[in-house]
């Protein structure tokens, strides 16, 4: 192992800050450290008192690419934009909103904002602070800043690209100059984002009065941002399913599957915390129903295209409007919860193949946290997939990917996968650091990977898992493995909360609250807290409970204390 960079005791910081910095530094990769040095230099430069006129030669105009990422897409785009900008002659740097304040950005001259919207119109959790500071009354002014916003979102949600829109409006309101119209991208963002980035960079160059403003650098989306694996979203690896087991008991009210994939020959070098993506296939019965509703039943070629290439469930607002125009169905009201089939059956109309396809988005990949470590199972990746099924508007609905895997795949079949790194959800680099893993349901997947990794490495840090589900007897995912890890001392502590075993619902946050003294002691010992799983209810409740515990036990402002942990990289979430 290479020696870790350490600040000397003589560094111009109080000793506790030296300790803190060393702790952070010890958990960084070479890449992270070089980025950090560049970043600090950049911030220094941006905030330097010199006027713009005395900046470095104009050919190296500074460009800040500020990203707000949740799942990593915005970050990957920012990285591509940085490279493209570099080729255009910018001195570009990509900055995570998690790492800066608006004041630190105020000195920048050229700014690209790439922002994802999460859930029901929320900013990504890593960008919450920046977002709040920017929206605050005391936000800095941005006169002289030229900017443009690329917004990522999902048209299935009402507040599509809300975060990007808010950033765009706010920068303008705070005096910045918008140099390109905001683009709002759906799940199939790649091509549109590429074109827009080219255009935006070109305009920025033109604004700077550069001679070769017309040059266009094409972003190469065929290559994964990390350039680690040669397989990518555009070119997935056909992995064989070597194990396909329903972990949920036969009487469970849930349906969760353990899937083992062979990655032999793929060279997919995932790390614990990373996800695998794959493009699922649609339910053939639903494809048939959609085709029948559109008057296109029996078209085998179209059936195949719909099965493999198009999202046949999500009904976006533009698609609805399009259908109303096509079918002259003015007065038709879009109902909450409608999918494509509901629309087609509510106002039946014979469609041409082209018309039908114009209503559908490309089928997007789905991502699942990897539940294994390569150090424990080389050439394999394990996934934990809960089949999503529910009734709505009188119709049984299925999660596209989860039910595809649960029902239509079996051992020996293939799954076309690619790696999606999650650099913001990694084990501490320090093997001695204790960790608390809060992962109910399928949220436990990355923690199985964490434990395999720490077990394989012989890491000595203590590990505490908080697991939850509905019923102890039927839903205790990987129970025998946790027992084994406890017995061998790899797992130091396990707490559980099963919501439906007793009259009062018990969730992981209740288990945390019950263990608050010990939890606080772990935090004081330097523990990192990880949360994975449901974003809507669980992650929010756990967040609030952690704040309460820090307040109760630490005697101060719990919210600030948790925020401090987050900023130290000791409160990490992967929620969905």
């Amino acid at each position: 192992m290479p020696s870790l960079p350490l600040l000397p005791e003589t560094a111009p910081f109080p000793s506790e800050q030296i300790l803190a910095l060393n702790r952070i530094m010890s958990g960084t990769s070479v890449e992270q450290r070089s980025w950090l040095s560049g970043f600090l230099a950049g911030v220094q430069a941006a905030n330097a008192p010199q006027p713009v006129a005395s900046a470095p030669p104009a050919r190296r105009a500074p460009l800040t690419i500020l990203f707000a990422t949740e799942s990593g897409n915005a970050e990957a785009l920012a990285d591509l934009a940085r490279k493209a900008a570099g080729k255009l002659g910018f001195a570009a740097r990509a900055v995570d909103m998690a790492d800066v304040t608006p004041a630190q950005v105020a000195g920048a001259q050229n700014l690209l904002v790439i922002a994802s919207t999460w859930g029901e119109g929320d900013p990504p959790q890593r960008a919450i602070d920046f977002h709040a500071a920017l929206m605050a009354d005391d936000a800095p002014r941005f006169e002289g800043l030229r900017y443009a916003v690329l917004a990522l979102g999902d048209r299935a949600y009402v507040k599509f690209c809300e975060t990007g829109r808010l950033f765009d409006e706010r920068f303008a309101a705070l005096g910045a100059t918008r140099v390109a119209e905001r683009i709002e991208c759906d799940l199939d963002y790649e091509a549109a984002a590429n074109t827009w980035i080219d255009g935006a960079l070109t305009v920025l160059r033109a604004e700077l009065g550069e001679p070769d403003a017309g040059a266009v650098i094409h972003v190469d989306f065929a290559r994964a941002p990390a350039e680690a694996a040669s397989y990518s979203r555009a070119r997935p690896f056909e992995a064989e399913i070597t194990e396909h087991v329903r972990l949920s008991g036969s009487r469970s009210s849930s349906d969760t599957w353990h899937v083992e994939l062979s990655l032999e020959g793929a060279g997919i070098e995932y790390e614990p915390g990373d996800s695998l993506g794959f493009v699922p296939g649609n339910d053939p019965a639903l494809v048939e129903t959609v085709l029948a509703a559109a008057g296109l039943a029996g078209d085998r070629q179209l059936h195949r295209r719909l099965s493999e290439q198009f999202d046949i469930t999500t009904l976006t607002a533009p698609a609805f409007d399009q259908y109303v125009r096509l079918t002259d169905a003015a007065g038709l009201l879009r109902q909450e919860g409608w999918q494509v089939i509901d629309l087609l059956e509510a106002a039946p109309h014979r469609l041409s193949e082209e018309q039908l396809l114009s209503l559908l988005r490309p089928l997007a990949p789905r991502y699942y946290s990897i539940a294994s470590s390569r150090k424990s199972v080389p050439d394999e990746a394990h996934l934990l997939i809960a089949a999503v099924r529910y009734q709505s508007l009188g119709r049984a609905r299925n999660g596209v990917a989860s039910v595809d895997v649960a029902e239509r795949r079996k051992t020996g079949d293939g799954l076309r996968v690619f790696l999606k790194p999650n650099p913001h959800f990694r084990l501490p680099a320090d093997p001695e650091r204790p960790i608390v893993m809060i992962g109910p349901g399928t949220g436990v997947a990355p923690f199985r990977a964490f434990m395999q990794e720490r077990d394989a490495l012989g890491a000595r840090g203590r590990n505490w898992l908080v697991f939850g589900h509905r019923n102890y007897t039927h839903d205790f995912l990987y129970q025998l493995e946790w027992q084994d890890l406890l017995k061998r001392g790899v797992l130091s502590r396990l707490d559980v909360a099963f919501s439906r075993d007793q009259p009062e619902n018990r969730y992981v946050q209740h288990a945390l609250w019950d263990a608050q003294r010990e939890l606080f002691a772990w935090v004081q010992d330097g523990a990192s807290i990880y949360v994975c799983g449901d974003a809507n209810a669980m992650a929010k409740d756990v967040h609030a409970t952690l704040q309460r515990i820090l307040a109760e036990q630490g005697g101060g402002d719990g919210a600030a204390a948790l925020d401090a942990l987050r900023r130290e990289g000791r409160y990490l979430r992967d929620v969905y």
Partner: protein
Amino acid sequence: MVRRRWMRCGGKEGICAMSIDQRPPSANEGIKANSRFLRGTISEGLTRVETGALAENDQQLTKFHGIYLQDDRDLRAERGRKKMEKAFIFMARLRVPGGVLTPAQWLAAETIARERGNGTLRLTTRQTIQFHGIIKSNLRQAIRGINDALLDTIAACGDVNRNVIARVNPWQSRAHAEVAGLAAAIGAHLLPKSRAWHEIWIDGEKVTGGEEEDEPIYGRTYMPRKFKVAIALPPSNDVDVFAHDLGLIAIEQNGRIVGYNVVAGGGMGMTHGEPDTFPRTGDVLGFCSPEQAVDVAEKVVTVQRDFGDRSDRKHARLKYTIERMGLEPFRLELERRLGFGLAPARAFAFGDNRDRLGWVQGDNGAWHFTLFVENGRVRDAPDRRLLSGLHAVATLGVGRFIITPNQNLVLADIPPERRAAVEALLRSHGLDAPVRGLRRNALACVALPTCGLALAESERYLPDLVTRLEDELERLGLAEDDITIRMTGCPNGCARPYLAEIGLVGRSPGVYNLYLGGAFDGTRMNKLYRRDVDGDAIVASLVPLFREYAEHRSAGERFGDYVIRAGHIRPTTGGNRFHLDLAAELRP
């Protein structure tokens, strides 16, 4: 303590004097001795969330607290592949001397079953309630709920005196009060004195200190094996008084109970393939006064405590102690400890060992309804909503709920003016439908999926088998005849199968031994008639006998007596003859 034991000399008939037992004690003896009076590491085990089980030694100790660790055997096959341990669940058994509950206690029990268990109540042949399917995280709350209802589960299992059962006949209010009172008195006297139950389940365990505990009757190793007491009141033998370590037969004169015949050495359990294990009907030793009864119970316990086999748990019950010692030496030891001799036994006569269903008015004017509960399982079926119906009756707040040794329920002491209300509830929940002769005399143990000992189905299978047999009986005109049929999933005998006219004991899935010739009044055991038969063979074996019985029985002759008179089976005259006198093809 020197462990004494009566040894057999030369492996033959004779019994030599007391000698020192050289064999090592069974593992359970060490567990008990080192348990700090039944505490073990149960409390610590309850905090271990990764497993639904408890440590192995603690599994033995929880029995003394009325709690069994089981697992859902229906799920066993799938668990390993799903990376889960066995589906562990606990059974908790109440201690209810005489089986008498208040309506409020019934409602509490039902709530515990719904909130902490599998939603059903299981009435047992020991006049108590079993809660099934309690997972570990709910166990303490379940027991606290029981404690809140002024009940407990102490000594409902384990090597101690179990729940004392007693004749149910509230319609003879004074006699019933006396036998129920004696059941409660014996139960209380023989209750372990350890505070462990309260500490572990209710108050939380003391860390250190506390007074040194003692078990004046049991000592720190308790009994060699379980110990059971039953009190009968002729002419009913509903408790099967000969099936228990200690039986008391109330002798009534002019409406007063003047004393009890003492019966010792009964027990049902045996092990397949081990002929030196056998069920046994107890022997009548003599007669004692009501005032002496508790003392007699205590001294029978202490003789068994000191002379019972502590090396081999399969030979540890009192019945084997008496077989080994001989009845007279046992009586002498008992009387030596009592300091008085038992009087000669009084005459008694039993008529049956069943429950009579329906309404009866008592001598004080109150009404009592004996409700058929098939195999003791209280749950709602679409046409027979037992759980809901009994809930509704209990909310009336009148009378008492008395669990019978035949797993039925007596709604007792209903004031005359409330009978109509109770009747209406029974009717609206489908609980007043008539039950035919075989079914109303059928008993099954719990067996699969919860009992760890079961070799075959019992509770889940007997109703179907009875339906098939009843169809045949109907054709033969025997539909309303009372014939006792009892099934257990293993040979340990929880449903007292060896005292039925037709006994069925599980051997392996779907396969049973068929026993015939038990007496209708529970005074004679049955005997093996067919080995390893399935449902079809059981029906095929019984139907010709039913046909013969219908044609050739004498007036009032019972089926169990008929098959002996007709020469189909030899009578079993005692436990040590249970495996003898078999048909040639059945002899080992």
